[in-house]
């Protein structure tokens, strides 16, 4: 009896240590929701908007994790490709759903090219993919600025004077996306009371989730999982390791591009030089909050993560204001939490990896002892 109690307690501890981040977030949200004083309907409607806005982006992170390449900080590359697509359709004056589709079509080849390049570089830096992909994001941001700030309006013709800076070339800091604003969200939208549910967007997200589930079962998906488990063994089994890894990054980048278009059509404005820099960090933090780790993530983590992370995001400024009388404090708090979550998850992942190695060693030693007897 006592033994049983002890083992269930151990299980509980194990559960806590495996889900530290999620549990922590549930506590933060539980404390700050009453403090913020927001009504339940307001929170629900906000969460639904943000789920539609961000889920696609976060799902794009799943495939590189499957291939053992960690969190793809290089998803900003896809976001940049999407932004170039959006700038083009704004210039050409294509609006509504055709505009969104056209932007997606323009972004695809750029994403593929960038993803291929990113994958090539990550193959050179095996074992430190995350920090490398993170720096790749910064590096491409420089190239992106070069293209958007100097080539657009110069080498690449832009007709609309609303887009171009007064000096004659370069795109303005903010681009108004009124032509495609909420066009996808309002497609097939249903209203329940004051809450509006963008069914169209959710259908697309559902289709993507089905795609990811299906993809896991294909030959390529199985190869990726094998590569994620052990590169050398997969190579011996005849899998083209490098090739598989590049493909996983390409898929992720292209999906991130589509996700960014969905995100921006919901926002309605494009911050030409800032939008993409934040997206990677928020998506990764949300995924980790949902209980994913560097080596394991599934679709459940995505949705749980979006809900918890954005709940914290919505309530913390108000909670900070009501608690200390300073909304600024709440804003800093949420920035701190976003970074803190990533730090904590990375540390826990490394610790767990070590513990598992230790456990394996202990099991092996015990087995040998048995045999010796």
């Amino acid at each position, binding site marked *: 009896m006592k033994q049983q109690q002890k083992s269930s307690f151990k299980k509980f501890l194990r559960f806590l240590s495996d889900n530290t981040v999620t549990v922590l977030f549930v506590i933060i949200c539980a404390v700050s929701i009453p403090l913020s004083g927001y009504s339940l309907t307001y929170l629900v409607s906000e969460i639904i908007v943000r789920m539609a806005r961000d889920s696609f982006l976060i799902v794009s992170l799943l495939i590189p994790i499957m291939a053992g390449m960690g969190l793809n900080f290089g998803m900003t590359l896809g976001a940049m490709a999407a932004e170039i697509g959006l700038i083009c359709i704004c210039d050409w004056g294509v609006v509504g759903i055709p505009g969104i589709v056209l932007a997606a079509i323009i972004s695809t080849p750029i994403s593929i090219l960038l993803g291929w390049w990113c994958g090539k570089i990550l193959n*050179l830096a095996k074992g430190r993919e995350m*920090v490398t992909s993170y*720096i790749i994001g910064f*590096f491409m941001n420089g190239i992106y600025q070069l293209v958007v700030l100097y080539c657009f309006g110069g080498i690449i013709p832009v007709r609309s004077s609303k887009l171009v800076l007064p000096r004659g070339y370069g795109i303005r800091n903010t681009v108004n996306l009124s032509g495609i604003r909420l066009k996808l969200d309002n497609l097939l939208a249903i209203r329940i009371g004051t809450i509006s549910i963008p069914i169209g967007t959710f259908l697309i997200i559902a289709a993507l989730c089905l795609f990811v589930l299906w993809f896991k079962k294909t030959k390529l998906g199985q190869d990726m999982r094998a590569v994620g488990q052990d590169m050398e063994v997969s190579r011996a089994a005849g899998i083209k390791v490098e090739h598989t890894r590049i493909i996983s990054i390409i898929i992720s980048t292209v999906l991130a591009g589509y996700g960014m278009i969905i995100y921006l059509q919901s926002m309605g404005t494009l911050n030409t030089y800032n939008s993409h820099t934040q997206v990677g960090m928020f998506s990764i933090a949300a995924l980790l909050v949902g209980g994913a780790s560097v080596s394991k993530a599934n679709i459940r983590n995505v949705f749980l993560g979006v809900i918890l992370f954005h709940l914290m995001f919505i309530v913390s400024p108000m909670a900070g204001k009501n608690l200390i009388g300073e909304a600024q404090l709440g804003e800093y708090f949420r920035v701190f939490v976003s*970074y803190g979550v990533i*730090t904590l998850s*990375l540390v826990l992942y490394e*610790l767990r990896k070590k513990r598992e190695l230790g456990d394996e060693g202990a099991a092996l030693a015990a087995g040998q002892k048995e045999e010796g007897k």
Partner: protein
Amino acid sequence: MNKIKEFVNQFGLPRIIIGLFLLLLFIIAPFVGVKVSTSINDTLVRFGMNSVLVLAMVPMIHSGCGLNFGLPFGIIAGLLGATLALECEFHGVVCFLMAILFATPFAVIFGWGYGKLLNKVKGGEMMIATYVGFSSVAFMCMMWLILPYKNPTMVWGYSGRGLRTTITTEGYFLHVLDDFLKIKIGRLVIPTGMILFFAVLAFCMWAFLHTKTGTAMTAVGSNPIFARASGINVDRIRTLSVIMSTWLGAVGILVYEQSFGFIQLYMGPFYMALPAVSAILIGGASVNKATVANVIIGTFLFQGILTMTPSVMNAAVHTDISEVVRIVVSNGMILYALTRKTEASR
């Protein structure tokens, strides 16, 4: 021909390109009407401002902890020291020294904790260091608002609480090092004090690396298993190296501020690690090997490009693409270092 190839391989193509680019900028400068003397002057000042921050990379690279992307953590210790010294109303050189003194216990405590953490996550240091830096900056954003500072030059005027985003060091420790033994040759002004200060620290670092502990640190960095076998306490040495890096980061930001003239709080230290990391890499360091010479060459080349590009480009083509050049050069250099095969296998 083979010799040239060997030299290129050894020195690294990107470094040669950057060196030639800087040389080209200096050659073009007089033709487009940029005064070379002012350019050299600016380069020297910026060299002095940033060199200590770059020096802060050396101990951690030596002990095998990788590039110190967590530099903001040390910078925060420095900022705490600076604000405390201002709060106590010290002035002049005393203020600067007191700032270093105040910053030291913070740097040691932070560095100790940070080092302990990095010991637990061997192999994944760089990514975790990045995010430790970010979260500490974000955490201190809250603290700057809450901490009970009183000095009216530092707190917001209307509410009387919470520190300003930028605090001037004028009247406190502005230019205390710059003006010490300043040499003027025509238009050229050499900030001797600042460069001397760096020289002293760099010499100490060089001397330290040749002591017993310093040699142990190098051993830990190049082969931890061998180091353990020869009786070195690997974790202790690594923690020591992180403390040193953190402290140098703290002193580095103080040197930076006394020349720059402002203490930048809140999100100010956020991206300060990247320029320092790329500077030492440009100087010829790799992910697990760095010397004091790398620091000097790297800081000079990197800061030279940062000063020369805007002025020369502006004069030559009437556009300012210096920001783009900065981003591409610094991050490109880090990417190059991360992807080197020989350096990847430790």
